[in-house]
């Protein structure tokens, strides 16, 4: 049987030839993302901003009567409610911000969503309230802090692990690559104004994990080659390492893309932001492993002497023989 080969057996693409261009682009994109996030802000969902979100389906209509609904909600003296189609044409989501004084009187927030759902059930026969989320300012602040903490800690813990398993230069390289990935994802959410909620934090942590996965595969090969070809210049050595792992990179990215595209295509609407973030993350993560994580090693002067010469064989020194089934 002839098997599919997406990448030829031996490739010799000089990826790192464009490293200076790539790093400039990366810096520009990172700075732009941070600026965009800072100026335009993220569209925080109720998880992080507090307030209420109601999702409803008008089972008897083909189109949700958004305009009428807007008037009816305005008639309830609720300010700043935004009403949007969500998913199918007969589905809407209603978003209300935290009202002033709601922090002192948490019941107030609940009263507002109750008023809206009761009005909808009275005015629109056939309406079905699918979900109600009501989060007080206090809880949303806590969720925000916990999310930020999880992100920060994950990045640090992972960089630390890489440092222990490789060398400090690799830890720094991985940390920069991660920072780049996270910044760009934030930029994407600031640009598209897709809702940023708890699920997106999970997506970010997964992107970090995935991007790292990629970085580690490349780093592992760099380490192996550094021991094997002790006379080789660093740039060709990095190129060789990237080329040797190219087939795997392409295969894995592709399987992930397949799984995520299916999830976007068939999966429930609620997961759209989550999967979109991950899909983007796959591309950014793959890119950053080659163009951020690897070139940083050049600037940090990684060479054959970075790893203490030990008994070098095809399998590498004994120290690294732990693993599975080996």
């Amino acid at each position, binding site marked *: 049987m002839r098997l599919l080969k997406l990448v030829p057996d031996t490739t010799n693409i000089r990826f790192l030839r464009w490293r200076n261009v790539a790093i400039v682009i990366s810096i520009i994109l990172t700075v732009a993302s941070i600026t965009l996030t800072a100026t335009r802000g993220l569209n925080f969902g109720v998880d992080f901003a507090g307030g209420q979100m109601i999702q409803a389906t008008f089972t008897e209509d083909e189109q949700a009567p958004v305009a009428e609904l807007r008037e009816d909600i305005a008639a309830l003296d609720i300010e700043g409610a935004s009403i949007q189609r969500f998913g199918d044409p007969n589905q809407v989501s209603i978003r209300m911000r935290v009202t002033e004084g709601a922090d002192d009187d948490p019941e107030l927030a609940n009263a507002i969503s109750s008023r809206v759902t009761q009005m909808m059930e009275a005015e629109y026969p056939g309406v079905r309230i699918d979900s109600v989320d009501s*989060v007080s300012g206090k809880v949303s602040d806590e969720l925000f802090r916990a999310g930020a903490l999880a992100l920060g800690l994950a990045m640090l813990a992972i960089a630390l692990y890489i440092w222990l398993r490789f060398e400090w230069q690799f830890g720094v390289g991985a940390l920069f690559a991660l920072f780049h990935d996270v910044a760009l994802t934030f930029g994407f959410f600031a640009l598209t104004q897709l809702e940023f909620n708890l699920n997106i934090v999970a997506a970010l942590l997964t992107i970090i994990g995935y991007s790292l996965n990629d970085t580690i595969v490349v780093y592992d090969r760099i380490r192996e080659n550094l021991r094997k070809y002790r006379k080789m210049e660093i740039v060709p050595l990095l190129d060789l390492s990237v080329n040797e792992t190219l087939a795997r990179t392409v295969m894995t990215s592709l399987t992930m893309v397949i799984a995520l595209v299916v999830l976007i295509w068939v999966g429930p609407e*609620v997961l759209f932001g989550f999967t979109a973030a991950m899909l983007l993350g796959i591309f950014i993560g793959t890119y950053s492993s080659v163009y951020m994580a690897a070139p940083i090693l050049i600037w940090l002067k990684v060479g054959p002497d970075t790893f203490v010469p030990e008994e070098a064989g095809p399998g590498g020194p004994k120290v690294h023989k732990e693993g599975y089934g080996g």
Partner: protein
Amino acid sequence: MNDFPTWKVWMLSALLVVGVLLAIPSLLNEEQRSYIPEFLPQPTINLGLDLSGGVHILLEAQTEEFEEQRLQTMSDRIEDAMEDDGPPIEIGSLSRSGGEISFAVRNEAQLDDAMERVRALTQPVGFTGERDFSVENEDSLQIVVTPTETGTSEAVNTAVETATEVVRTRIDELGTREPTIIRQGAERIVVQVPGLDSPESLMSLLGRTASLEFRMVNYEADPNMALACQAPIGSEALPYANQEEGTGCVIVQRRVMVSGDQLVNAQQGFDQRSGEVTVNLTFDGPGGRAFGRVTQENVGRPFAIILDGEVLSAPNINEPILGGNAQITGSFSVQSANELAIALRSGRLPVELSVIENRTVGPELGGDSIRLGGLAGLIATVAVMTFMFVTYGRFGIYANIALALNLFLVLAIMAMLDATLTLPGIAGFVLTVGAAVDANVLINERIREEQRRGRKIIDAVQTGYKEASRAIFDANITNFIGGALMFSFGSGPVRGFAVVLVIGIITSVFTAVTITRMMVSVWIKNKRPKELVV
């Protein structure tokens, strides 16, 4: 490749069979499950509220008010103690500010006695000999009573514990199935009720303190004070329930005749004459006797029925009420009267609870999510499997078998650990599918590479597994770190995702590395292939 002796192959296979069998109950519906014999273990996976539909409510105790109230009670008791616990001690008015009570004793000779009486009101806390209030003598005749930190936190702790029990009783009275009520931290209670799609009645029931009191109206007070909601010393001005502001207050005595704590039953009913909706109360022995005595002494005078600090009604006592039964009205609907009856039966909340988070998912949305999520998972798995097969042939099939086993194992372990599957959890499954094959991709690509370098079949396979394992190990550890952090800091949906991810990481290393290696090794041993197409 003789590192898989026959006994090891059998053992691993048996382990896998058990794993798959344990996953099966979770994939069946209730009816199909009923065919499984009783004696077999039937672990099933829990569905999160976002999949099953239901209500999630986070309640927080209003500790500020609670502490204020505790101070008030203490200052009332001090007043009583000075008057009644022996020869009366004359004191200046008690002031309650800055979280402490202070008062002056008029006669210096009585200072020690006064200190002693106040000390007798305090309680020891814990084992350190500390008491719940500290009593100090400042400025010669001034006594200052301050709640200690340990005392306050202990009081809050007890109150929240009692409140959790009250909440449990109230929800049980609603007759919902399988509610989860968990205390969270010092001041919070999480309530989850699957299948309930309207949170309104639940929230109003839980948010109600249900502190019922009967007190005499101070009918001698100036009506103008009632209008302005001011009260003379020893009385309190309370607003009417269900009335607009500006209608004034009722001035009632501070002393409580009978309270809701003395109830044995509360039922919704109807007034026989007017047909109005009522709540009928039955007092316990002492409560009934107290009620009888006070009503006997005060025929013709008004008393007030007070619920959660608001006056429901203030009727005149027409005749002594001796039977220990009473009836309260207050423009109830049948539903609100029922709710009040439940709240009164289950007892007063020792501390007010407010809803700080509420998430409700309708059953239809939950059902849609399971269906769409499941479908996406299935399609993604099939697509990835096809892709693996056309790329790696025989080794792709091994990877696919490992992938399928992995999904079963994740399900089985989640069911055994009683973990909850949420919607992001389904996404976690899909992701696990994508990531689990990465290990096999790494291995297979490495084997291809080693073959190109001229290694023989067995050598290439062995080196491939060994060399790839290092990167697989590191990558999975880092992913595990991310997942573990998600689990500890995340809440609700994120945790559901992290659970699948973390379990998936562990099982995928086992299936994608160990199990595929076993399959390859058995194949090589039995067939002794001359060439290897990876």
